[in-house]
């Protein structure tokens, strides 16, 4: 899978890595049990500090997307990703809330909002069927 990191973006590099790996899993470009590069190797390929990659990996591990073995290295969680729990829904609502508020301020209609959600959802999901 190709990661595309913008070194000068406002978005921190560790979140860029995190979100792209999660999207890779959603698109099934990364399958359960797939290897990811080691912290050292990914950091030097991108040309950034080890700690940045480590932070992304630690967060991904906490949320159950990857496993970090001492010997075997980093792999996408072999059992697949856990289904959404009540806690996840709560987090989701909390994250979307400010975005909806912003959209209402800028008079984005409910329909438009739904269309945007649907297109992005399809964009990510259609890749899965190919």
């Amino acid at each position, binding site marked *: *899978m*190709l*990661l*595309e990191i*913008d070194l000068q973006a406002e978005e921190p590099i560790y979140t860029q890595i995190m979100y792209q790996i999660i999207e*890779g899993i959603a698109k099934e470009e990364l399958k359960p049990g797939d*290897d990811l*590069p080691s912290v050292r190797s990914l950091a030097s390929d991108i*040309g950034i*500090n080890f700690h940045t990659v480590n932070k992304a990996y630690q967060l991904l591990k906490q949320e159950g997307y990857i496993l970090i073995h001492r010997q075997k290295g980093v792999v996408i969680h072999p059992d697949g990703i856990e289904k959404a729990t009540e806690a996840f829904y709560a987090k989701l609502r909390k994250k979307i809330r400010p975005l909806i508020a912003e959209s209402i301020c800028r008079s984005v209609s409910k329909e438009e909002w739904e269309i945007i959600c649907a297109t992005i959802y399809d964009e990510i999901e259609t890749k899965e069927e190919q």
Partner: protein
Amino acid sequence: MEILFFIAMMLVVVVLQAITPYVIRRGESFGVMVGEKAANDPALRKMKRQFLNWNLIVGGLVTVFAAILLLVSTSENAQATILISAILIVIILSLLIYVRFYKASLAWKKANLQVASDKANIVMVDTTFHRQKLTISYAWYLIPLALIFITIGLTVIYYDQIPSMIPMQYNFDNEVTREAAKNYRTVMMMPMMQIVMLGLFLFINYMMSRSKQVIDNDNPTASMRRNVLFRYIYSKFNLIMGTLLIALFMVIQLSFIFSIPQIFITVMLILVLVIIFGGLIFLMVRVGQGGSRLKLEEDTQADTTKPIRDDDANWKLGVFYFNRQDPAVFVEKRFGVGWTINMARPAAWLSFVAIIAVIVIIIIIFS
């Protein structure tokens, strides 16, 4: 004979330098990142042509001048001095020509590409890159290792047959200019050099597998495939080169023991040099830096144009990589074919100091 050898050598040095702008990555112009699209600009293409011409003219003049000096000079020392200075002068002049075009490329970029490269610094990495087969298996190096064992074994078995004085240095007419008394230390000189060489070629192979991936933003998938092929091809060539050199040293060592006709050694030496330098030029032209000249079936023009990477500040003069943020030790060269080090990493310095130290120590101990 030595004049022909000299001209051939100068030809190799000059050609290797003159063609460099054509074999580096397509998106680069004299160590400056401009992107594949801009690289086709007539102004930049003209610079490449001018660099080639300048190098050929300067190289030709120095060669002719040095060849005349060589013909009139009589002493062995003077000839050696002329030879080494001619090569040094050509390299320094070529560097000066390079700096001129490097600066011109920077100025061109500033004038023409400012908008595109203003705030973008996108890096593409493939998460599976280092899991692919980038270099040949280290098991292949058992072949040159076996040659070293044969050399050592035969030296030990036939120690008595080795003459009491062994040659240490030759001139161009294959006459011995320096000899050393036979003992186990001097006899082991060649095998030690073979071992150092083997270590060096193993190190280069390791460097190829470890150096950071470089993926062009314009056409990431094809560029990644090229990068993988590039490493694999050079890894093969590295083994061939190492094995040939070690075999050459083996034959030289065995010539102390058995009567090997001089002509055989001379032919082998020339053959090895032709294969190595001819192969190098061939690979530079056919494969290019990072595989940039390889033709791939899936090659399609990039449909999405991403902003080019702007990391010129990390490349001092376009040739020396110095980036404190980057943990990578080995990186691909910007101007030229092959790999270089991240000068901001002490580990990179240490590995080079260690290599030079080992060679110096071997020379001191065994001669």
